């Protein structure tokens, strides 16, 4: 933008001048490039290299003078730690996670008055609370690296048609997904694979795709309304469960060996989210009902899947009233409606707290603590971010999984790590 200061008289004089030939407006280009380098070491057990990763992510946006724009993005990464440490990581981890190129967002967008239409590979994000993916149910997630640091980078873009009608204080969104995609689960032999049973050979067969068929469509609708300071949204999604159910097949008696075959089941999810500010405290609420979810159980030597309804509720309070401090407290509840014999935890609670401290020169300290009271396991994430320049950011961090070996977070204890990373941001 240029400084344009026109006196009223000057404006009139300019208007009276003969029109000069005007060049046709050209499309504008914007790009964002981020390059990351990270090294991390295991903190418990064998204290060796946990990650040595370089990645580059680019997003290019082309905005046409009409109402159209095109967005294209991709990410390339190489990870050296797995190949350097074959004693710790399996061949599956080395093959699947040592290098990759991923197509990220790739869509065309039309904005016409209150209408926005996006067609192509994209992310649709629902939900209000921090840290975890409760109502963020549309896109599958890449869970191979445990608890994701950037929620955006863990989200897998999906080809879809996404139409939004946006008013002053309300909106209506419709999405149609012709071909569903699924979560990427931790590879067997990796730091975050927890299904290993001692003395039993397991093979996981999870192709993460369905045969292409028009019958496999998914669709959702979401409405939002801001009423008297309360920001409400209601949504419904008919989809396949992003997490698979596994059917166990005994392939060998001695030594015992099983193949776990992934199965995809349809679910329907309905939910409400809300936020409101009450006396300097922001209250966030998410509640979901999942209909038809299958739960894998192991009872009397039999491995089976049982269908039930699941209720998830999350309540969060954020306080940002103190200068340079931000506090957030979150509680979640997850319950299965029917009694399912053999299911380990039909009701689960989790509590988490997050503290952010802004320091001088835009340095930031963050601490996240998540606790599962039923098994007393917890996850602690510490991060220190220091912007070294306008384009360069240093980050020191630690992810700690604490608790007994059989507990949810304790099972990941050996994956605990400290890390240092440098992030370069470029754009134009």
């Amino acid at each position, binding site marked *: *933008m240029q400084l344009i200061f026109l006196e009223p008289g000057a404006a009139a004089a300019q208007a009276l001048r003969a029109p000069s030939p005007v060049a046709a407006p050209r499309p504008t280009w914007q790009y964002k490039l981020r390059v990351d380098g990270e090294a991390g070491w295991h903190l418990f057990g064998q204290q060796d290299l946990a990650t040595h990763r370089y990645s580059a992510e680019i997003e290019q946006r082309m905005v046409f003078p009409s109402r159209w724009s095109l967005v294209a993005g991709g990410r390339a990464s190489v990870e050296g730690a797995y190949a350097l440490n074959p004693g710790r990581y399996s061949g599956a981890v080395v093959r699947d996670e040592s290098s990759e190129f991923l197509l990220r967002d790739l869509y065309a967008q039309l904005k016409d008055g209150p209408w926005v239409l996006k067609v192509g590979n994209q992310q649709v994000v629902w939900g209000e609370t921090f840290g975890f993916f409760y109502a963020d149910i549309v896109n599958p997630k890449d869970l191979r690296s445990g608890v994701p640091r950037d929620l955006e980078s863990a989200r897998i873009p999906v080809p879809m048609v996404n139409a939004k009608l946006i008013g002053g204080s309300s909106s209506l969104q419709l999405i149609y997904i012709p071909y569903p995609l699924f979560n990427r689960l931790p590879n067997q032999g990796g730091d975050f694979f927890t299904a290993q049973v001692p003395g039993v050979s397991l093979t996981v067969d999870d192709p993460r795709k369905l045969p292409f068929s028009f019958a496999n469509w998914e669709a959702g609708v979401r409405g939002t309304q801001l009423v008297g300071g309360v920001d409400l949204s209601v949504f419904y999604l008919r989809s396949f469960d992003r997490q698979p159910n596994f059917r166990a097949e005994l392939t060998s008696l001695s030594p015992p060996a099983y193949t776990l075959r992934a199965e995809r089941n349809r679910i329907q999810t309905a939910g409400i989210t809300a936020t409101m500010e009450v006396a300097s405290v922001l209250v966030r609420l998410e509640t979901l009902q999942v209909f038809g979810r299958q739960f894998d159980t192991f009872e009397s030597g039999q491995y089976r899947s049982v269908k039930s309804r699941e209720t998830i509720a999350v309540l969060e309070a954020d306080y940002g009233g103190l200068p*340079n401090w931000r506090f957030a407290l979150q509680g979640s509840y997850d319950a299965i409606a029917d009694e399912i014999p053999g299911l380990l935890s039909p009701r689960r609670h989790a509590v988490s707290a997050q503290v952010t401290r802004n320091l001088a020169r835009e340095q930031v300290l963050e601490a996240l603590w998540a606790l599962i009271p039923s098994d007393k396991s917890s996850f602690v994430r510490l991060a220190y971010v220091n912007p070294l320049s306008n384009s360069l950011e240093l980050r020191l961090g630690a992810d700690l999984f604490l608790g007994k070996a059989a507990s949810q977070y304790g099972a990941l204890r050996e994956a605990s790590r400290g890390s240092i990373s440098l992030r370069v941001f470029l754009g134009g």
Partner: protein
Amino acid sequence: MKNVTRAAIALLTTIFPLVASAISPDEMVKRADEARMPEGAVTFLVTIKDFNGSTARESRYRVSSKGSSTDNNSLVESIFPDRLKGRKLLMNGNDLWFYLPTVKRPTRISFRERLTGEVANGDISRTNFAGDYAAQLVGKETFNGKPCVKLALTAKHKDVTYSKIDYWLDAKTHFPVKSAFYAVSGKLLKTGEYSGLKPVLGATRSTVLVIKDALQPSRRSVLEFSGFKRVELPDSFFNKESLSE
């Protein structure tokens, strides 16, 4: 004839200050608002230089605003430095959202949460004091040799950045000169000085604001407003659902 002219001049010079001082304190604040920001739908750039002792950091924002004396919507988009590019701050009435490209969804926040340096979110996104504060004339003072009226502004509702503001306006033009911002406890948080009067969209307006920390005067932020343009901004532009589009 000369006597008549003298009498008329004497009458006018007596009446004019009376007329000027007859303006209510709330009307003075409204005039000062107009000297800070044009009404209606506009876009402009804000450059913020944060000084902490001898070190300085610069950030730049593109602001789209649609406001009147009673209602104010604005979208602040970070354009520099590159590492903060794409972050957005949306104010719709009394509600505020923050958009991070690394999360790709709007997150609601409170007005008191900071944007950068000595500048709070509300300092950029909400510049309309007349809608948020009730004004009372408390006296006349001279600041930098300039005669000023001093107003005490008290928040009309809780959704504002500061609970109380002392506001010094030029006694003749009612352009803003200085402000002091207070917390609910009555503690002085920071002070602001307005300068850089320039013609902007058909009127003279202040284009520079220097905000100083009350406890650490070496910490200050200089806000420069430029590149004002009148634009068409539909209401849907200020819906949080537009942030990711």
